[in-house]
């Protein structure tokens, strides 16, 4: 029986396969190039065709262009030029149809007028038949209107058909490459073109759901979904239910958690209600307990418990005068400016923003009225935090030049008219030259009972699941005072050495914040000694100090923000880890610096480095090495 088996299979060798594949590919390349050339030629023709070609020919060209690009895009949906060509062509078609409509309308109106003229003549001739004629006329008018409507509908349908063809094409392309920029953009364009009334937005949401089920991190698709929701005014509650489903399928879906946070904010207009917050906290906790190793719910949880961001406000004002004998520094090159006000804002702003809102008034002695408004002078950013070197950097610290301040006792600085947080005065007389504004009592995001309850839950989870990065971070965020969180950050740095730098920064921030909160008798001297700092955050908040003690920390370099310490005279940086002259470079901008203590740094051991440093600094700076 087995002898009857013919056609025994023989496996083709791999070389044969390779050759066959290479051949196939070469054929494809030739085909692709030809089609591409064709498409470019047609596009050129369509663009130029306004000049010479017959309408029929133009139409043919367009149709062919659409055909060719469709085939090409189906093979490779990432050719943006072809999508653009399609959009052009579609717009041309639409325009042409509108033109045709207008022309037809005009023609009809002309015909009507002619007929009316004729009829009028006839009326004159045959007055007896007048009534009948009128009736006819009315009927004709009705018919014409109907025709018009039909034509409009027809052209409308043609456009809709063309656009829904685009939707099909993009869907097919997206099946092939779900992350094609061009295809998603073209799809959004098509939907906008169709508008809410004609587009099937429910179907569109279904499509995005399918794509998101396949790849939950398809950001193109997320963008598209948001676009569709905006377009159709989909209520946030429906989208919340959608994110619920995605999270049930995979609670590690970062995008879905994030989408949720955006939706909640949109739904409640900024602040969450206590009820919503509790519900969301329970959801996040359930996810965290189900799998503590999943970082997504932890991040969402911290977002829920995070305090609202600090409002923009004035932190302090400091008046500086050139005439002051102790202040004989060349802090400004402009000879006309005799004095200035240093202003610190809680959040960095740009010059353009500030220039619009800034209002400086000089109040003469004893006059508490409006005073006279100072002519607008350009504020100068000091130690910009971002956009350094660009024309419009953002900074916390601003120097506001004051001209002709003679006889003025009080200067009022306001940024924006209606906010008490943004307006204050500073005296030009010696004792009151620094104005520290008290921080307003901030309404915290969560009440104390909820916070301690949540803290207990997180502690329980950390105890059961063992110390984890997310767990410790979250616990640290829930602790009521910065000082309590410091040991947690130390543990984190041990647990996760790769991120120890970031934890050091966070720890430094908390330590500095704690030290700043302590009440001080002499605000112009500040000691940050022995805090284990690896970074110097929040410098703008104390940029008015004249004496700063940074000794016994772990600083390896002084950050650029040190340049903002405009009044600094004595800097004690003993027993840190400053290695070379470069680590102290920002000090060059501190024009009043006189004493720099560097003992106990690697830098102090090297004569060359010291020499380089003193070259950078002004000759008035005395480097003390005791």
């Amino acid at each position, binding site marked *: *029986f*087995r002898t*009857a*088996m*013919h*056609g*025994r*299979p*023989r*496996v*083709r060798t791999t070389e044969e*396969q390779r050759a066959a594949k290479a051949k196939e590919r070469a054929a494809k390349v030739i085909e692709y190039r030809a089609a591409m050339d064709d498409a470019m030629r047609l596009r050129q023709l369509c663009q130029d065709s306004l000049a010479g070609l017959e309408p029929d020919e133009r139409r043919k060209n367009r149709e062919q262009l659409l055909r060719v690009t469709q085939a090409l895009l189906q093979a490779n949906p990432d050719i943006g030029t072809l999508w653009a060509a399609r959009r052009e062509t579609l717009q041309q078609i639409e325009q042409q149809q509108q033109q045709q409509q207008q022309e037809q309308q005009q023609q009809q109106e002309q015909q009507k007028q002619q007929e009316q003229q004729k009829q009028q003549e006839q009326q004159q001739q045959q007055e007896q038949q007048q009534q009948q004629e009128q009736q006819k006329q009315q009927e004709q008018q009705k018919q014409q209107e109907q025709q018009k409507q039909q034509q409009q509908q027809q052209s409308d349908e043609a456009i809709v058909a063309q656009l829904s063809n685009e939707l099909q094409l993009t869907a097919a392309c997206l099946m092939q490459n779900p992350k094609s920029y061009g295809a998603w953009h073209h799809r959004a364009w098509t939907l906008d073109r169709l508008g809410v009334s004609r587009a099937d937005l429910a179907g569109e949401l279904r499509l995005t759901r399918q794509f998101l089920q396949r790849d939950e991190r398809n950001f193109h698709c997320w963008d598209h979904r948001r676009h569709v929701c905006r377009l159709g005014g989909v209520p946030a509650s429906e989208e919340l239910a959608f994110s619920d*489903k995605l*999270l*049930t*399928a*995979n*609670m590690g879906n970062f995008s879905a958690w994030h989408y949720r946070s955006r939706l909640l904010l949109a739904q409640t207009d900024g602040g969450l209600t206590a009820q919503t917050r509790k519900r969301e906290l329970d959801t996040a*906790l*359930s*996810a965290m*307990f*189900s*799998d*503590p190793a*999943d970082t997504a719910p932890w991040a969402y949880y911290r977002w829920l418990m995070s305090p609202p961001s600090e409002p923009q406000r004035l932190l302090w004002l400091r008046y500086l005068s050139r005439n002051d004998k102790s202040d004989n520094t060349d802090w400004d090159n402009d000879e006309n400016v005799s004095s200035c006000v240093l202003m610190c804002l809680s959040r960095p702003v740009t010059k353009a923003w500030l220039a619009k809102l800034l209002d400086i008034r000089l109040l003469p002695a004893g006059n508490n009225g409006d005073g006279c408004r100072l002519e607008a002078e350009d504020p100068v950013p000091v130690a910009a935090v971002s956009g350094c070197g660009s024309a419009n950097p953002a900074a916390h610290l601003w120097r506001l030049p004051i001209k002709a301040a003679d006889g003025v006792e009080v200067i009022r600085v306001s940024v924006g008219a209606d906010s008490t947080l943004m307006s204050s005065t500073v005296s030009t007389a010696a004792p009151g030259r620094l104005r520290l504004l008290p921080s307003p009592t901030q309404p915290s995001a969560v009440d104390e009972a909820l916070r301690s309850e949540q803290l207990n*839950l997180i502690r*329980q*989870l950390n105890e*059961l*699941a063992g110390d984890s990065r997310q767990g410790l971070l979250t616990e640290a965020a829930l602790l009521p005072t910065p000082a309590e969180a410091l040991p947690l950050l130390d543990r984190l740095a041990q647990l996760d050495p790769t991120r120890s730098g970031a934890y050091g920064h966070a720890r430094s921030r908390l330590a500095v914040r704690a030290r700043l909160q302590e009440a001080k008798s002499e605000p112009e001297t500040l000691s940050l000694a022995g805090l284990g700092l690896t970074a110097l955050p929040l410098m703008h908040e104390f940029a008015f100090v004249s004496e700063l003690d940074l000794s016994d920390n772990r600083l390896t370099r002084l950050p650029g923000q040190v340049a903002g310490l405009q009044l600094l005279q004595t800097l004690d940086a003993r027993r840190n880890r400053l290695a070379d002259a470069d680590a102290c470079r920002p000090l060059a901008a501190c024009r009043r610096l006189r004493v720099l203590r560097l003992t106990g740094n690697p830098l102090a051991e090297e004569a060359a480095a010291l020499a380089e440093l003193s070259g950078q600094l002004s000759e008035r700076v005395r480097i003390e090495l005791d």
Partner: protein
Amino acid sequence: MSDLPDTFDYIVWGAGLSECILSAALTRAGHSVLHLDSWQQYGGAWQSPTLRDLESQLAEVAPGARLAWAQPAEADAWRSRSRYFCLDLSPRLCFCRGDTVSALLQSDVSRYLEFLPVSGLYTVDEAGCLERAPVQRGQLFRSDRFSLVEKLHCGRFAEFCVSCQPDRDLADAGSFPELLARHGLRSGPAQRLFALAVGMSPPDSPAETVVAGIRRFLASCGAYGPSPLLVPKYGASEICQAFSRHAAVWGAVFHLGADPDRPPAEARRRLIVSDRFAQSGWLDLGRKRRLFRQILVTDGSWAPRSEDQQDADEVRLAVCMLPGFTRPLLAMELPPETGCCPTGTRVVHLLQPCSPGESPPTDCVQCALAPFTDLRFERLPPCCQCASEPTAANLPTETALDKNLGQSDSTGQPADSAGQPADSAGQPADSVGQRADSMSQTADSVSQPDDSVGQLADSARQPDDSVGQPADSASQPANSTGQPADSAIQPADSASQSADSAEQPADSSGQPADSAGQPADSADQPAAAADDQQPFRKPSCILSVCFVQDDLSDCLNPGALPDNVTVVPSLYSDFDFDVAFQRAKELFDELCPGQEFLPRPPDQEDLVFDQPASEAPTVNGDCGEGENEGAAEAAPPATPAAEVTPNGDSSESQPENAR
């Protein structure tokens, strides 16, 4: 017959799963194989007959089986849709990383098959309600049956199970509940989740056993989607057929409907015999394990549609312990998407294995499984065998049952039938079948009293009809000893009825409005339509088939076998296919030591034929005595070269072939 050789290397009797795998493996190893079965269907004890085939062949394939229609008047309507059913005799599960799947992939037999994931896993809680087992992370996260801390412990315990070394870590672990308690899990839901749903073992078994089950389950998670379990589309016999086809492609000869007494050829090397064809001395039936089986066709799912599955309905499993059994019950609910039942219906398979020597509370399958089915389904056909037992001891019970039935007929049914129109109105998107269903149900409810009388008459007639009856009457003493157990079931029955009656007020609340007239009714319906959360309606039973299968895998009597005979157990009481594959591989390794088991065939695209098709000689198959030895024409080897199709019926019964 003339072309059929007189001898083959191997002759295999029985078209069950192990046998088909074995003949495919032997053929792939280059041996000539003749595969025979006396039945007309592929699959042997694994076949998936249509409704008509099941009805006509039930007595043959499952002696003692009892098939009952909930509404005998509807039977013909369902028979006309017979071919939409694939009613598995032996449904089983695939673990995604189990031996079954790896063998299917390796041999490329998977190309003939389609699978669906099992997406709903349930256990039954203390109150008898179904409880969704949160076997996936997302389900655990959403579950409200676990406290926060328990959720954490669940995850940690699963990690422990995966990472532990059973020999070292579980040597003195004690029982499974003790192990769980050591991991901080003491609650009922947690025990049910890990022991039953994940471990598929009795909760009080040794820790090692359950953890082995858990490890196996977890190892299969995430292979093809989140669910670790698959079921074959169109029933379990598809797998048998796929291997048969694979064997036929490589040259095996199949012959269904063969006469066991007149083998058409001789075996040169060995005769491989399914235990169905084993001679009486070869098996020691004392060690057999019984497997209680019930097939239910219902008009809906036992659980409301889950949220995350929107487009297709789920394949659902429930694992629970029934009173009187030491091993868990597996209930498998197949939606129409599996190709096993028409739209609007479900097939529910119940598998209740007994341990060897175990005496279940009753020999009546339906009564034994009633603690599960009574709470899930409505309109279950009454259990005639027990109800009409003519012993004196049984009589009071019978009258009690009768009374109960009567009560439910007099009070329950009218309310039910009144509720019916509202029901069908509440589900406008229902299929034609369902509408026919509800129509016939209303028709039924009109003629209800007669019907119930007819059913009782039926039940009176049943004993004579049923094939199993002689055996039953022979074991009457056993039955009478089973009597207390019977009465023990009675409370459960009445409990379910009280649950029924508890539900009925809700139904009957709609009834006054109904009887009051149209306006009230129409006012009622929009409210029902506006309500998204339709009240969950218990599915009604359409058909119930009860039978007992025998697992003879431990019954082999190797000493009594002739030298050239190997006996293959045809059936296993395990819940998955893997045992069949393992046994087939063991036998193959015994028969062909050193040869690869089911090696991967070359890809279709890579096939080059030595001879042009036109030159290939054709073989004209002779047709004789109703058997057709397929023609090895110049067809590519992907089509069955020598597959024997028994008769025209096969196209109806085997949708896979039709495609």
